């Protein structure tokens, strides 16, 4: 009975080969599928109504959301740099990039809250109100959840209580961050530019 010795293989691996990376990919597929169906439903409802946005709803502003999107886009490279630093086990690099990532995330989120408060319709008002609040609510829920996940990782690294599993966590967390940024672009176009593009002027 001959043997295949794997003793010399590394006991961990921070790359897309690790099962955790594939698990996050599945999470991204699940969330992506959800937002895709919501966008399709939003367009379906738009096609059934003659007046869009429904009477009484304001035309969406564009300045604040665009700035918020830009802040979100800037935060993505820092998440990439953090995961590269995690591969090199470079603690200072990880801390710097995670902090910058969270800072730009905070900027994006505050701008979004400001825009959110300026809407003149709530979720009960009409179909568009329900959908806009659903998009904002669901994306913000994922956004906060992932920001807290990144914050906890940052704290762990700061107090030095981290090992290769936590470095893998930083690498894998960037997958979800890329997804959050990528999925916000179509949502942003649909709920902010939508009424201008396919609205009924």
């Amino acid at each position, binding site marked *: 009975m001959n043997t295949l010795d794997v003793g*010399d293989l590394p006991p961990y691996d921070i790359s897309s080969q690790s*099962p955790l990376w594939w*698990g996050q990919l599945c999470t991204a*597929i699940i969330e992506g599928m959800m937002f895709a169906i919501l966008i399709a439903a939003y367009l379906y409802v738009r096609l*059934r109504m003659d007046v869009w946005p429904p009477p009484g709803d304001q035309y969406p502003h564009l300045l604040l959301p665009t700035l918020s999107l830009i802040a979100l886009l800037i935060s993505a490279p820092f998440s990439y740099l953090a995961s590269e630093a995690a591969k090199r086990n470079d603690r200072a690099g990880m801390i710097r990039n995670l902090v910058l990532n969270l800072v730009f995330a905070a900027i994006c989120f505050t701008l979004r809250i400001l825009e959110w408060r300026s809407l003149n319709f709530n979720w009960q008002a009409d179909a568009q109100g329900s959908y806009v609040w659903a998009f904002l609510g669901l994306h913000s829920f994922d956004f906060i959840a992932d920001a807290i996940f990144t914050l906890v990782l940052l704290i762990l690294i700061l107090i030095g209580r981290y090992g290769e599993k936590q470095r893998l966590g930083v690498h894998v967390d960037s997958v979800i961050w890329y997804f959050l940024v990528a999925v916000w672009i179509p949502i942003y176009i649909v709920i902010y530019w939508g009424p201008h593009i396919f609205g009924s002027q």
Partner: protein
Amino acid sequence: MNRMDKALTQPDVETGGVAALRHSWRHPGGIIGWFSYDTHQAIGMRYIVTAFIFLLVGGIEALLMRFQLAHPNSGFLSPDRYNEIFSTHGTTMMFLFAVPMMEGMGIYLVPLMLGTRNVAFPRLNAFGYWMYLGGCIFLYWGVFSNSAPDAGWFSYVPLAGPQFDFGKRVDSWCQMITFTEVSAMCVGAELIATIFKMRAPGMSLNRIPLFCWSMLVQSFMVISAMPAVMIASSYILVDRTSGTNFVNPAEGGDPLLYQHVFWFFGHPEVYIMFIPALGFVSAIVVAHSRRQIFGYPAMVLSMVATGFIAFGLWVHHMFATGLPQIAQAYFTAASLMIAITSGVQIFCWIATLWTGRIRMSTAMHFVFGFIAIFVLGGLTGVMLASVPLDLQVHDTFFVVAHFHYVIIGGSVFPLFGAFYHWFPKMTGRMMNEPLGKINFWVLFIGFNLTFFPMHILGLKGMTRRIYTYSPEMGWGTLNLLATWGACVIALGGVLFLVNFFWSRKAGKVAGNNPWDADSLEWAASSPPENYNFEHLPVATSRYPLWTPQEDFTVVTGLRNDRREVLVTTLMDAKPHHRYVLPGPSIWPLLAAIGVSVGFAGSVFNNWYIVWGSILTGLALIGWFWPRRPVEMLP
């Protein structure tokens, strides 16, 4: 027991190996320990047992419905109670029995068949089970507090909307779906990661057992279809509790939008329940006709094709809503296309049986019963694909007969075959064969006695979901016959339970491979240890236990003092790195409780989402907080 079994289970040279392995993979003791198991056999068995209990509960509800329909104008059940029971019957069978049972069998068997020690994310596995149990408790808390769902298992709006369905009835349905699909998506994600990344070295893509292929296809369908039902049930829930206008007909929320979103999930759902059964049948046919499957690539491709086409034909549930002619013609074609992939698989099985030496065990009986019933159900499905016929038989008892033929014939018969086939592996004892064959015939005859007359009732105009009918309609005799058939099925269920409990104690002791089958799970001991294999096997061919080799290779070098598994590359499974699995912990249960508080509470007051999220956040932090120094390698 051929050379491979001996190689895998003989004690290692340094006897400390097995003892250390058994120590590091031991189950924690005590009550808290019981709640923190995370080995795939324990969690898989919990899914299977809970799902089987809900099969019996669903069966009792079916019997109640049949007693009500046995006679015209019978007063056995009031219309309100009947609506509750048929909705709960459908919901229980679809969400609390079928999907979790197939997931449970997948969790139990896939790691064994791939030659690894556990699923990729053991704690997520435990969390998934607690969420499923939470869903069961939540629904049946509703049932016993007079707020069971009463708008059918797919709750069409506006009947299920806030104005026409009062109280918290449909809410309990909506939230139960949120529970069960979180659990299904957990299992889907971890099975994908396990099958892609943790196969035995040498098990390239074309050497994966067919059952693992079916679980892979099912998992991809779960993670792509379940979000649709999450949206559909959330549409109703948020409309009912917070007054949003997602499905308010007056505000643009077209009832057809709800139907599109629901059936986009609905049809893949029935394939999610059916495709694992294809894996069961393939495994049983290969093992009991002692012949390699005929047309392995054809089988895999047709399973994958079924997975894709299933997403393209949901509108055949909505032919009666007056959609444009072109759309109906396209969906007729798509619905007919899916019959080709099932046809290919049936032909490949028959070819395998044709040139194999068949051992007519009980499992094989169930396979023959499956072919007989599923082919009939599939052909009535082809009839339903055509628009003019569907307009005549949609929402009648013809459709009820069709989907019971395809689900019970297509999924439950292979499932019982799988129980008889893998019972020796799960418990170490054989099930009684003569009693098993009687059990098969009682189920087969009872099934046909119940559901074949429903075809005729459907053609005679008996619509679906009616709590009673008048005597002059001429439906009385056939309904009475169907009720007698239902009692025979119940007898079949009791016979299975008798065989199950009798064999657990007094069944013939089964070795590692009683059926002399081919796949790796038969190399592990029965019932398998927590770590499955003392040394992980190396797969050198598609049928590891049937390929005679002089010196069988095993993997050495994994550390025994902690839970280590081997991660291999995706395409041809070359060892890539070792992966330390987390040990058992109570945090998944606490996280599940946090999520359940959030979900169950949000039915009554939206602020519970906030409290639930905070609780879950804290539980997750506790879950991932690095504790043992061993995890913090340099």
